[in-house]
């Protein structure tokens, strides 16, 4: 009788290569039992792998720049390409979402990880980078460099405020973003109303009151004077700033509970709760909102310069029907504009190529060609004051009934309110929004609709909002705020 283990020992004498071949053939036999779906995925892997292997690899660049806007990328590329000299010192533009820039930037600042040499940061994102002591801010302090090269005077002064901490500037401003009031001139002029002479909000609502009719008698107005609601935090902040309100002082200490804030808040809430209700909540970016604009549901809109290009693209049907006027003031002789949004260009401290980056940044942020393109493509005016006399800003804009829109925004640019760079600004704005919601609810339940009747309650609610922000800031040892 043959010992079965003799065969086993014989088998083990095979060379390693034979055993491998055996394993592979066995594996192939066993894989035959797998479904066709799995084989399709294997085939996709092999085919796409070949594609990835032979795809073009990006060139190595010395400078890296992160931008979040495809429009900015499209504007900068020709300018960068036209730069003479070493290819490697031309910044390579990476287009990332705002969230990705925020994650990578903060990982870089907190963890010492690599970031780009130049980063464009949106205002809603930059606050976090300014948290902590001034010497620990991840961006380079540009104040001295800007001063020595005369750039501090070159830029519109209020446009530096969101990027400044304790008087030190940490970014080059990309824009000004003044706000005007856009209105359906076709409807207003057909009604024989002249809004050009209007100076205050009160006069504005009075002038448009005849247009707020209820033709079908269903108890709901067919038209409203303006699109605004107290639940829109950006617009609440915009109007607070216009009226002289402020959420933080120059030292970034919270000032939510000021009497001027209470006055403005009670005024704008009264617009929404008043039985005649001259305002309506129309979404700024949705299809429904655009349709309401086409239908003329609201006559006027708060319109920062960047909003013009949004309408041109998304609501072309209102082209030639709109006009712009400066914002009506809260009081006679008051401020006729405000500000909303913004972007800066920062230079991370960790970058070793600051001098090269600086030269590229100056080219992109102070060049007349870029400024012109910025206005032509997205209607944004440059913060570089010496470029404000460029003929591009005098061009009539057919969308706004051939008004010289650029010059109108520029006339208002020096008067935009200064803003805080506090990392707690977003929280503070949301607290004020909550106070506005509670104030509206209180006003309705007590049937009190006049601003002066609401002021005391507004102050009380703003005090609560103020204390909430103080508590939040007190958790951060570097804010200097105590509970």
């Amino acid at each position, binding site marked *: 009788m043959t010992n079965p283990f003799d065969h*086993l020992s014989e088998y*083990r004498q095979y060379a390693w290569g034979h*055993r491998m071949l*055996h*394993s592979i053939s*066995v*594996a192939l*036999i*066993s*894989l035959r*039992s*797998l*479904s*066709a*779906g*799995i084989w*399709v*995925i*294997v085939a996709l*892997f092999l085919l*796409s*792998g070949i*594609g*990835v292997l032979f*795809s073009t*690899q*990006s060139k190595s660049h010395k400078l*890296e720049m992160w931008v*979040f*806007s*495809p*429009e900015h990328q499209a504007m900068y590329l020709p300018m960068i390409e036209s730069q003479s000299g070493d290819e490697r010192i031309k910044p390579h533009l*990476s*287009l*990332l*979402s*705002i*969230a*990705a820039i925020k*994650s*990578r930037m903060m*990982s870089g600042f907190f*963890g010492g*990880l*690599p970031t780009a040499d130049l980063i464009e940061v*949106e205002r809603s994102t930059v606050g976090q980078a300014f948290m902590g002591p001034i010497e620990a801010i991840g961006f380079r302090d540009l104040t001295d460099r800007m001063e020595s090269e005369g750039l501090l005077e070159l830029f519109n002064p209020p446009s530096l405020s969101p990027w400044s901490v304790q008087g030190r500037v940490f970014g080059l401003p990309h824009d000004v973003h003044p706000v005007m009031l856009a209105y359906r001139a076709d409807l207003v002029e057909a009604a024989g109303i002249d809004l050009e002479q209007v100076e205050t909000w009160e006069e504005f609502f009075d002038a448009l009151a005849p247009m707020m009719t209820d033709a079908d008698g269903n108890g709901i107005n067919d038209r409203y004077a303006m699109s605004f609601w107290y639940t829109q935090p950006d617009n609440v902040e915009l109007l607070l700033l216009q009226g002289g309100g402020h959420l933080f002082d120059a030292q970034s200490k919270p000032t939510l509970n000021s009497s001027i804030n209470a006055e403005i808040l009670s005024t704008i809430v009264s617009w929404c709760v008043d039985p005649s209700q001259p305002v309506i909540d129309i979404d700024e970016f949705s*299809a429904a909102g655009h*349709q309401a604009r*086409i239908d003329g549901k609201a006559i006027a809109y708060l319109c920062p310069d*960047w909003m013009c*290009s*949004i309408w*041109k*693209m*998304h*609501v*072309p*049907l209102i082209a030639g029907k709109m006009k712009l006027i400066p914002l009506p003031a809260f009081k006679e002789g008051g401020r006729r504009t405000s500000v909303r949004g913004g972007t800066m260009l920062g230079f991370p401290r960790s970058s070793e190529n600051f001098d090269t980056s600086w030269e590229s940044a100056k080219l992109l942020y102070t060049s007349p060609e870029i400024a012109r393109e910025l206005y032509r493509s*997205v209607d*944004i005016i440059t913060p570089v004051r010496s470029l404000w006399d460029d003929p591009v800003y005098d061009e009539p804009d057919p969308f706004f009934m051939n008004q010289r829109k650029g010059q109108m925004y520029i006339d208002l640019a020096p008067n935009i309110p200064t803003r805080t760079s506090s990392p707690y600004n977003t929280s503070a704005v949301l607290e004020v929004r909550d106070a506005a919601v509670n104030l509206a609810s209180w006003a309705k339940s007590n049937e009190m609709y006049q601003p002066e009747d609401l002021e005391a309650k507004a102050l009380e609610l703003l005090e609560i909002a103020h204390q909430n922000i103080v508590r939040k800031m007190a958790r951060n040892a570097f804010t200097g705020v105590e509970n």
Partner: protein
Amino acid sequence: MKLQNLNFKILCLHAFLILLAIIVLFPFAWLIIASLKSQEDFFSGMFVPPGDGLFGLGWDKLTLDNYKALFKLGFGNSLVNSVFYASASALFATLISAATGYILAKSRFRGRSFITLIVLGALIIPPTLLIAPSYELLYSLGLLDSIWGLLLPTFAPAFGVFLFRQAVSQSVPDELIEAARIDGCSELTIFLVIVLPLVRPMIGAFMLITFLGMWNNFISPQIILQSESKQPLSVAIAQLRGVYRTDYGLLMAATVVSVAPVAALFLLLQKQFISGLTSGAVKG
């Protein structure tokens, strides 16, 4: 009479199913039509913009311009990248998870329970919590902005390892493995010839989950990859959303391009995947 009742029931059932199908297909129909509309016509009608054509609609206003513009922007490259990342991740994650699950289920070695506990523990950590440490680890390894940096962390998911450990424990009898060892099979042969066919239902299901997971993955490529040439579809689509304005027609065309291949693939191969899923359900 009974036949008439039966026909009526079938008719009602089909009417109900057609209604459900319309509800399910409505957004897809809207998406496809929207991808064929120009920016000017985008908000001018729910489906086809109004015009002088059939039913008072402007059929001639539908255009393929958005698709042409999309591929000029380099979407073909992103499509290939997405297919590669998803298929590589699905294949390697399945193979590695199955092998690890087999070892944890059937091998006896010191620390096995501890490793199983770690795998189980890893399951309760939310993936978003791992973004920052993963980023730092990949930086230390020099894998940021590399394909490996994106793929390596997906090759051994705790979920997959645990899933296959359970599948092997329940589907593969110890006696079978011992018999194979007596017959002289190596561990690799046992895994490939004995274990894999027995956990075939799990392979189909897990590969499907991993493929779709990676196809839809947005956060990781966004954080790890910087070069545009390496970006998958999910990131490329997000970049189409401008800060000042968005070309919605282009965005919808990109969404169709991202949904269509994977939907077609799984519609065509659903029988194969389902047969894989159910083949282990009935034992002879």
